[in-house]
């Protein structure tokens, strides 16, 4: 297992280097300059500013300089906020994004699992149809529509929850719920399908005929084995949620990182483009690794290396 993880970590760094290289050169193809009021700058002022930020150097030199700093964990300074580092921008924005994303993921997964299991166990019943109608709605209606409706009816009309901002636990409820709707729907659908398939397999019948209680069979065999595809979809979903949902963060005025990536591209904020890309890539690679390890825990047959022989 240790050898496997070492190999994966090495591959991870190699992947990051490739991503950094490709992003760096692609980013240099972006038109425009990173200066806010470039339309008011004269040629000479533009040259002087480019010089100040090292942007007059040939691109390969800029690339080497960037890698040198990256190796020390330094993502550079953003052009948008004077004197602020990309590291601190990511660190500040990541907290709220990750918190609301994690809450949505946990809540959405739990509710989705319960709905999916209930729908499968009560196949072709009112519960099944009800759960699936909810799932269809959850997938078809975008989260920001839920967010807008919740904000207006629950926040403005009923006054039960704060309309926006990020101050205490009550401020998390509406954004997390809005984000979780898609998760609930997806997880419920996957869980129901998997459960139905597994419920019909021979080993379940075998286990039941051996006298094991229905409850034990469902929990130990059925639910557990249905989790494999759920974990597969949860990985990428977690990245999307934890790294911030631009629209939900905007609607609820959450000071997250969601907007930074898009904005940095529009503003030619090169260090932020690089920083957020690498950070997202890093998270994705780590989550893929975590998912692979989880596979092994849930189903020993998938274990890649090591373990009990």
């Amino acid at each position: 297992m240790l050898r496997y993880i070492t190999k994966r970590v090495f591959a991870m760094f190699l992947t990051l280097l490739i991503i950094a290289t490709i992003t760096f050169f692609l980013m240099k193809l972006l038109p425009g300059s990173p200066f806010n009021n470039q339309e008011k700058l004269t040629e000479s002022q533009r040259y002087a500013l480019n010089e100040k930020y090292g942007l007059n150097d040939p691109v390969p030199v800029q690339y080497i300089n960037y890698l040198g700093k990256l190796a020390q964990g330094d993502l550079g300074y953003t052009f948008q906020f004077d004197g602020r580092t990309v590291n601190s921008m990511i660190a500040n924005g990541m907290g709220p994004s990750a918190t609301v994303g994690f809450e949505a993921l946990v809540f959405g997964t739990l509710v989705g699992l319960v709905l999916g299991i209930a729908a499968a166990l009560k196949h072709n019943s009112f519960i099944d149809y009800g759960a699936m109608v909810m799932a269809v709605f959850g997938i078809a209606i975008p989260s920001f529509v839920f967010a807008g409706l919740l904000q207006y009816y629950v926040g403005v009309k009923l006054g039960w929850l704060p309309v926006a901002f990020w101050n205490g636990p009550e401020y998390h409820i509406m954004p997390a719920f809005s984000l979780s709707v898609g998760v609930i729907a997806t997880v419920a659908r996957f869980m129901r399908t998997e459960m139905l398939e597994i419920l019909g397999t021979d080993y379940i019948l075998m286990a039941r005929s051996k006298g094991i209680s229905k409850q034990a069979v469902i929990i130990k065999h059925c639910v557990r084995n249905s989790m494999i595809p759920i974990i597969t979809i949860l990985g990428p979903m977690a990245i999307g949620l934890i790294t911030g949902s631009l629209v939900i963060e905007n609607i609820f005025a959450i000071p997250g990182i969601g907007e930074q990536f898009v904005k940095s591209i529009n503003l030619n904020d090169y260090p932020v483009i690089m920083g957020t890309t690498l950070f997202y890539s890093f998270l994705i690679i780590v989550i893929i690794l975590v998912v692979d390890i989880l596979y092994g825990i849930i189903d020993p047959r998938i274990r890649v290396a090591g373990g009990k022989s």
Partner: protein
Amino acid sequence: MKKSKWSLLLTLVLVLSMFLAACSGGEKKETGEKKGGNEGDKTEKPAEPQVLNILDGEEIPSMDSSQATDSVSFEVMNNVMEGLYRLDKENKPTPGVALSHDTNEDGTVYTFKLNPEAKWSDGSKVTANDFVYSWRKALHPDTLSEYAYIMGPVKNANAIQTDGDPLFGKVEELGVKAVDESTLEVTLEAPAPYFLGLTGFATFYPQKEEFVKAQGDKYALEANTLLYNGPFVLNEWKHNEGWQYKKNDNYWDKDSVKLDEINVKIVKDVATSVNLYETGQTDITGLSMEYVDQYKDHEDLYTRGEATVFFLRLNQNSKNSDALKNANIRKAIDMAYDKQSMVDVLLNNGSTPAYYLVPGEFTPGPDGEDFRKTNGNFGGYDLEKAKELWAAGLKELGKESVELELLNYDSDGAKKMGEFFKNQLEKNLPGIKVSIKAQPFKQKLELESKGEYDFSYAGWGPDYQDPMTFLDMFVTDGAHNQMGYSNPAYDKLINDAKKEMDQEKRWEMMLEAEKVLFEDQAISPLYQRGVTGLQKPYVKDLAHHLFGADVSYKWAYIEGKQ
């Protein structure tokens, strides 16, 4: 094995929660005492809480006055900092740190006497050296401000920031001198009657060298790594979330400041802002076009004109078509679309049609009359005349049809505007075919500066309160001309006006220059931008400015809040 599997899972969950907890660190509520220079004794309790709650669309990009470039930073700084002068409620320069000033005969040397009561929030005096240090910092190649060009009127400022000039980087050659601790002498390149107003612009604010150096890299990054000398201090600054102003008890004119506290939250979504207004969590909100109709009869609705003018650049150097080299074609285009309905239907936000370059109610002349009022309007919607001019132009060109490409921004509003031009021009000018190239903001500017377009949708906001900020854009080969316009008569008027000592003559020259620009129909003006929003009636005396910072809270107060 079983045990170890679950312990591995548990470890993963724990690591993840620790990671999240670490990430969430920044959002914890402050438990300790709040810092800031606002803890002075309040002898008198006002009749009602003097607290204003407002929203802003962006985080503050910079609080280093010598580096800031954007409207959010300028607005915050205008309320926590002060230059030699500041704009009052009527947009006239009123003493700030300066107590008074003298000028030499030709108006090129200003001597400012500083107010001995002007203090930093640490209680120390604001000195002449604080200005010299900050101004030099804005121009030094290592700390060059993106807004350094605003210092252009000060002697040698342009040379210092021009690479290759013998004075490049020699900030000590800048025309600013601390005669003594409370006397500042500024030498200008040429007389600039707007200079006093310019000293209220952020780039001209003072900075205390000793404090800046002590803070090093951390200077102005947080509320407590900055000194304030304005009506308020930044008491709290939660990045990406909002900030809080508190009244500055060290401010020399603190008796004029009535608000105790201003809470600002960052909200980017207009629907959210409107919902927050409805629930009373903000006292002011801007409205986008789609909300204006919904609130048009609301008693809190306000509409205000700005000094930003939008226009069509008509590129006479286009590689694609030489049609715009022809003055009749340019005039025909200007007359062929209805500016009034464009403003009423497409913008619907208080913007007014523009038949000029220098905006209305922006700057009065030596006679006290608004520049706009004196010079009147140029051109306008006249279909018949447009068709005549168009036919004449085509004849001169020897063509029957013209294809032009409109370079546009890619925002929704701009796209609608582009469709409007296309529709109106194609309907009203026989033989014209307009294609639209919508580009992201930066790309659009890039194409414009390279001259790779036929005509484009552009705008300009003033840097200082003088017609020159608009007019000198279009001198031959000017950095912001970008459309190949050149008229020696225009250049002469602008260059002479920049050197003219007699203010009345100078004014005449600028009025004349604008006439020349429209005789040539160098541009086709579109509209003067307006803003619409909602403001609670109990918010009084907010001062809105036409250039530099948008708002001053110095004189604002709350009265009649239920």
